[in-house]
C-alpha cells in the first residue's frame, strides 16, 4: 500500500500509539503506519471497531494503548488498541471533558488529559482506568493562546506549540503546573500552508501534508533537529557486500545514511546483503588496491575485480563493498566502473563515511570553502572545515549531529539515475 500519510480529504484525526501513526477517517475506518527509525511503512487498515466517525466527535488523543475520543457535549469514549486491532468502544465514567466552546486543543501527558482553551488556560483530568477525574486548573503559565498558534503536541512532559511561521515553543509540565514558555532552537516546523496534521512518535515530531508527504524532526531537549522526509518519494536500492565487518556496525551506518538522505526526500532501501567474510576466495580483495585519491572512473585491477562481484545488483542499484582496508589508506573510495555504481567502505570508516561515499557516487563533490588561505603546497589544508555538511572534505569523523545537504546537492542527488521513485 501507499506510504503517503493522511492525504485523503476524509482523514480526520492523526494520533500515535507507540511507533504507530494512526489516521482516523470520517467513516470510522482507521489506518496505521508503522514508523521505523525515520521511515514510515505503507498504510494498513486496523481491524475491529470503527472509531471517531460521529459528527459530534471533536478531539482524538491517546493515552497508553487507549484511543480517546471526546465529543461536543463532553462525553468521552475510548477504545483499547491491541496490535492492529481496535477494541469495541466504551464510555468513560466520571467527569465530562472538553465540551466548552473555547476549548481549543486536547493532548495527554502521562495519565492526564489536558485541555487548553482559547485564552490559554490549561485544565486537566487525571484518568484512572476507564474513569475521567474531576477537572483541575493548572497553575503557572498560560499556553497556546496566540492566534498564530497552530498545533499542540506533547513529548514526555513537554507541551509543544507550533506557530504559523514555524516557530516552536514549549512548556515543561510538572505536576499541576505549566512551566514558563521557552522557544525551541533548531528547525522550524509546520509552517507551510499545506501542513495538515502534527503528531509525535517517540521523540520525533511529525508533520503530514495535504499531499501525503510527511516530514519529521527529532526533538532533543529544547532543540528541533534537521527535518527529514519520513516517506521519501525517491529511494536508493543499496546492496551490501560484506568482506569484513567495519568497526562501526553497518546497521548504524545505514541508519545515519537514512537520516541524512531522508532530509532530501530520498529513502535508502537495503536490497540485499551478502556475507563474504568467510569466503576463501578473493581474500586479496579485503585489503584493496585503489587509485590514490579515488578519481572518478580510474580503477585498479582489484577494484574492477571487486565490482565484478555483482550478483543481485541491478542496473540502477548502488553497491557498498565493505573491505578491511585500502592502499593507500582511506575510509572509503567512491571510484566504480561505468556499469556498476558503488563504493568501497573500509573497516576504519566513520559512521557517516558510507553516506558520504554514496554521495560521491550520486555525483556530489566535496564542499567548497573549507580551504581558506591555504599554502600553495597544501591547497586543501582544511583551515575552515564545515562539519555540519555530509560532503565535507575534512573528515566525516568530526561531524556532530545529523549533517545537511545544500539545496544544490539535493537537486543533484535527486536527479541521479540511481535515485528512483519509491
Amino acid at each position, binding site marked *: 500500500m501507499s506510504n503517503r500519510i493522511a492525504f485523503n480529504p476524509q482523514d480526520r484525526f492523526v494520533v500515535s500509539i507507540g511507533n504507530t501513526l494512526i489516521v482516523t477517517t470520517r467513516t470510522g475506518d482507521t489506518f496505521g503506519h508503522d514508523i521505523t527509525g525515520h521511515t514510515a511503512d505503507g498504510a494498513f487498515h486496523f481491524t475491529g471497531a470503527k472509531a471517531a466517525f460521529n459528527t459530534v466527535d471533536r478531539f482524538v488523543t491517546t493515552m497508553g494503548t487507549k484511543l480517546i475520543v471526546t465529543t461536543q457535549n463532553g462525553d468521552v469514549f475510548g477504545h483499547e488498541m491491541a496490535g492492529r486491532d481496535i477494541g469495541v468502544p466504551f464510555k468513560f465514567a466520571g467527569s465530562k471533558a472538553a465540551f466548552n466552546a473555547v476549548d481549543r486543543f486536547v493532548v495527554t501527558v502521562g495519565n492526564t488529559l489536558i485541555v487548553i482553551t482559547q485564552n490559554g488556560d490549561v485544565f486537566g483530568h487525571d484518568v484512572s482506568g476507564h474513569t475521567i477525574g474531576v477537572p483541575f486548573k493548572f497553575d503557572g503559565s498560560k499556553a497556546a493562546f496566540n492566534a498564530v498558534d497552530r498545533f499542540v503536541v506533547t513529548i514526555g512532559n513537554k507541551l509543544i506549540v507550533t506557530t504559523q511561521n514555524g516557530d516552536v515553543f514549549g512548556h515543561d509540565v510538572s505536576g499541576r503546573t505549566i512551566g514558563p514558555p521557552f522557544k525551541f532552537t533548531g528547525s522550524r516546523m509546520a509552517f507551510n500552508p499545506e501542513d495538515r496534521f502534527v503528531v509525535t512518535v517517540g521523540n520525533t515530531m511529525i508533520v503530514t501534508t495535504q499531499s501525503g508527504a510527511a516530514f519529521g524532526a527529532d526533538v532533543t531537549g529544547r532543540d528541533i533537529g534537521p527535518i527529514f522526509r519520513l516517506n521519501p518519494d525517491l529511494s536508493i536500492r543499496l546492496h551490501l557486500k560484506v568482506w569484513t565487518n567495519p568497526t562501526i556496525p553497518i546497521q548504524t551506518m545505514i541508519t545515519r545514511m537514512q537520516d541524512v538522505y531522508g532530509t532530501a526526500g530520498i529513502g535508502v532501501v537495503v536490497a540485499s546483503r551478502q556475507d563474504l567474510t568467510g569466503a576463501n576466495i578473493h581474500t586479496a580483495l579485503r585489503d584493496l588496491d585503489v587509485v590514490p585519491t579515488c578519481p572518478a572512473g580510474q580503477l585498479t585491477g582489484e577494484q574492477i575485480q571487486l565490482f565484478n562481484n555483482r550478483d543481485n545488483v541491478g542496473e540502477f542499484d548502488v553497491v557498498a563493498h565493505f573491505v578491511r582496508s585500502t592502499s*593507500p589508506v582511506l575510509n572509503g573510495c567512491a571510484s566504480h566502473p561505468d556499469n556498476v555504481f558503488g563504493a568501497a567502505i573500509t573497516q576504519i570508516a566513520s559512521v557517516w563515511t558510507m553516506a558520504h561515499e554514496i554521495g560521491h557516487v550520486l555525483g556530489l563533490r566535496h564542499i567548497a570553502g573549507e580551504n581558506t588561505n591555504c599554502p600553495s603546497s597544501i591547497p586543501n*589544508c582544511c583551515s575552515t572545515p564545515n562539519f555540519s555538511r555530509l560532503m565535507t572534505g575534512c573528515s566525516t569523523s568530526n561531524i556532530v549531529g545529523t549533517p545537511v545537504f545544500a539545496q544544490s546537492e539535493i537537486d543533484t542527488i535527486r536527479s541521479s539515475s540511481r535515485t528512483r521513485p519509491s
Partner: protein
Amino acid sequence: MPVTLQDVVRQLDRDEPDYEQAAQLGPEVLAHLRQLIQGSNIGLAAKAACLAGTMNADESVPLLELAARHPDPVVRVAAAASAKNLTNMTTSLATIFLDDVDPGVRKWGLRSLEVTHPEGIETKVEKIMNDDPDSGLREQARKVVERMQ
C-alpha cells in the same frame, strides 16, 4: 611555522586523505607519525603508517617497522602496502611482513617486493610460493620469484 600534530591529523583524519599533499608538510611530520602509530586511534595509526611510507625518508623504515609490529592488522597492512614507496627497503622489514600471520600483510609485503627487493629475501618468498595456505599468495610469490631471477 612548525608543523603541529594537529596539522598532521587534519590531513590524515579526512575520509580520503591525499598522501602526496600531506607529504608536503615536510620531514617535521615524521615525529608526529610515530606518536600516531603508537596511539589508540587505529584509523590514524594506519594512515600515519601510510604517510610514513609515502614520504620515503630515512626515518620511514623505523616507523614502518613500528607499524609492522602493531597488534592491529589494519595498521600492519598499511605499513606493508606503503613500503612499496621505499627505496631503502630492508631485509628485516620485508621479513616482518612476509612472516606475518595475516594474509593481507603478506600480500602487500610481496607487492612491495615487486618494486624493490632487499638481499636475502628470496628464501622467504620461495617459502610463501611453496607453503602458503593462500593459493593467491602462492601465485603472487611465484611471480615475485620470477622477477627476482
